[in-house]
């Protein structure tokens, strides 16, 4: 079925189709319409799930952690300061290996208070052990929600489905709604790795000592360090699981193909722009303009940010002369986190003597500062021609007016 709706509704329909059984969320702009729509679905009897109204985002994720521990398919959503208010539970959900799915509708973080889009909220959570997917349009939002449950349950690791506040959450776009029968073929019923059982009570994630220990059955049980190593090991293995999930999705729905990267005109590109989310689709227009001027440039969207697809990215950009990373977040005191990640990925090749492209980092759209296509075009034209450009105080911050 074809539909024209906003991105939050696309996400909500995805969650309904996925058969989420417990929804716990607290309203925060621009996420609110997503969970409002879910509560409407439940109230109307279209969705069989428990909707738990909570007093905070911390409680929202805590409720999902409890629900997921009993073997229920749990979903929440948030933005910006709401995500940060959950932060302690964000770590907890990953350490407890619970396959919760959370939509993060990307919004700038206060202070100062700001409700517009950038990526500082979800990027700041990159070290929590969650999988992070970034969406570029409404089709990717609804499809990613379904894939997120499949991946989360396959690897027992929670997934954030990130999409741009307002730019995607509140704009209307056409998208295909997956058929229920096809979803049933794609997403099998949730069979938790472990679920709480009143007949067999257990303590989960209580104080776990630095050392391994013999449990009451005489088996050698993990210490904290083993549990954390397994999380890291399974996150790295998720790169392959995400691709298998993508293949299975494409077989059933005919869409998608690459779970990690989304290249646009990169095959012969001398310069490649790397980014996350809807910005990479906006860059398609920039690429067309610059190509019409004779500049061989392409865009590489990163669909899966954590685990970071370092090897795939290196393979995809190593032939280029230069890579420009444009991102909507900063690791304050250093540089853009994605910029650091891209350079680190290429460093191993550089160390072994292989030629690697130069990498330049740029920041754009902080706190919803409009990213004008003309500005992107001018900036990238200047970058690929090496020509000077009046770009304000810091040419690395596109659109800055100091």
């Amino acid at each position, binding site marked *: 079925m074809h539909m024209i709706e906003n991105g939050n509704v696309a996400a909500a329909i995805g969650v309904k189709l996925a058969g989420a059984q417990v929804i716990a969320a607290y309203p925060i702009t621009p996420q609110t319409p997503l969970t409002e729509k879910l509560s409407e679905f439940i109230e109307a009897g279209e969705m069989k799930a428990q909707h738990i109204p909570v007093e905070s985002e911390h409680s929202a994720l805590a409720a999902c952690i409890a629900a997921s521990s009993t073997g229920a398919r749990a979903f929440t959503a948030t933005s910006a300061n709401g995500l940060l208010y959950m932060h302690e539970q964000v770590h907890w959900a990953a350490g407890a290996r619970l396959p919760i799915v959370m939509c993060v509708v990307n919004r700038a973080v206060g202070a100062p208070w700001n409700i517009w889009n950038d990526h500082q909220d979800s990027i700041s959570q990159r070290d929590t052990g969650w999988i992070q997917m970034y969406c570029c349009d409404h089709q990717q939002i609804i499809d990613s929600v379904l894939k997120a449950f499949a991946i989360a349950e396959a690897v027992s690791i929670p997934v954030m489905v990130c999409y741009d506040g307002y730019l995607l959450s509140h704009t209307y776009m056409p998208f295909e709604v997956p058929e229920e029968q096809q979803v049933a073929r794609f997403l099998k019923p949730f069979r938790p790795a*472990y679920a709480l059982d009143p007949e067999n009570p257990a303590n*989960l*994630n209580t*104080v776990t000592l630095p050392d391994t*220990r013999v*449990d009451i059955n005489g*088996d*050698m*049980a993990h210490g904290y360090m*083993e549990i954390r190593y397994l999380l890291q090991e399974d996150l790295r293995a998720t790169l392959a699981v995400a691709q298998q999930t993508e293949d299975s999705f494409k077989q059933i729905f005919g869409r998608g193909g690459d779970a990690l990267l989304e290249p646009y005109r990169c095959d012969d590109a001398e310069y490649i722009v790397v980014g996350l989310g809807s910005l990479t689709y906006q860059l398609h227009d920039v690429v067309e303009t610059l190509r019409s001027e004779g500049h061989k440039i392409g865009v590489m969207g990163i669909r899966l940010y954590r685990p970071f697809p370092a090897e795939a990215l290196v393979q995809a950009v190593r032939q280029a002369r230069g890579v420009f990373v444009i991102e909507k977040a900063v690791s304050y005191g250093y540089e853009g986190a994605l910029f650091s990640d891209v350079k680190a990925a290429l460093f191993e090749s550089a160390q072994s003597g292989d030629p690697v492209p130069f990498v330049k980092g740029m920041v754009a759209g902080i706190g919803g500062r409009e990213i004008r296509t003309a500005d992107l075009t001018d900036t990238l034209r200047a970058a690929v021609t090496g020509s000077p450009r009046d770009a304000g105080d810091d040419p690395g911050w596109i659109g800055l007016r100091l």
Partner: protein
Amino acid sequence: MGTRGYRYKTSHSLSGPGDGGKTGSWRVQRPIIDLERCTPARRGSEACFICWLYCPDNVISRTIPPTIDYEYCKGCGICAEECPTKAITMVDEADVVANDEDPAACSTEGPRPCT
């Protein structure tokens, strides 16, 4: 022996001795029961057991006399605080280790018998 083959990838424990680890090593002070003052010990019958009731780690037995499992007793001192006859005193663990042969320090019948 590694834990690669362990059946969970998380921290998972069951109710039973030791599934939280050997927490007795956390103890700074050790509770010692004076059987001359302990009500069930004196009467030789089931009585009181306030220490057993209050122990948050369930390491005091409901026996005559009550015994303390020092493998897991964290030395919180609640038993000594609650004992109505002041039969339990908290002794510095360092002193107990230094005077390991001291019979006063070995008057209980825990699972780690004194030598």
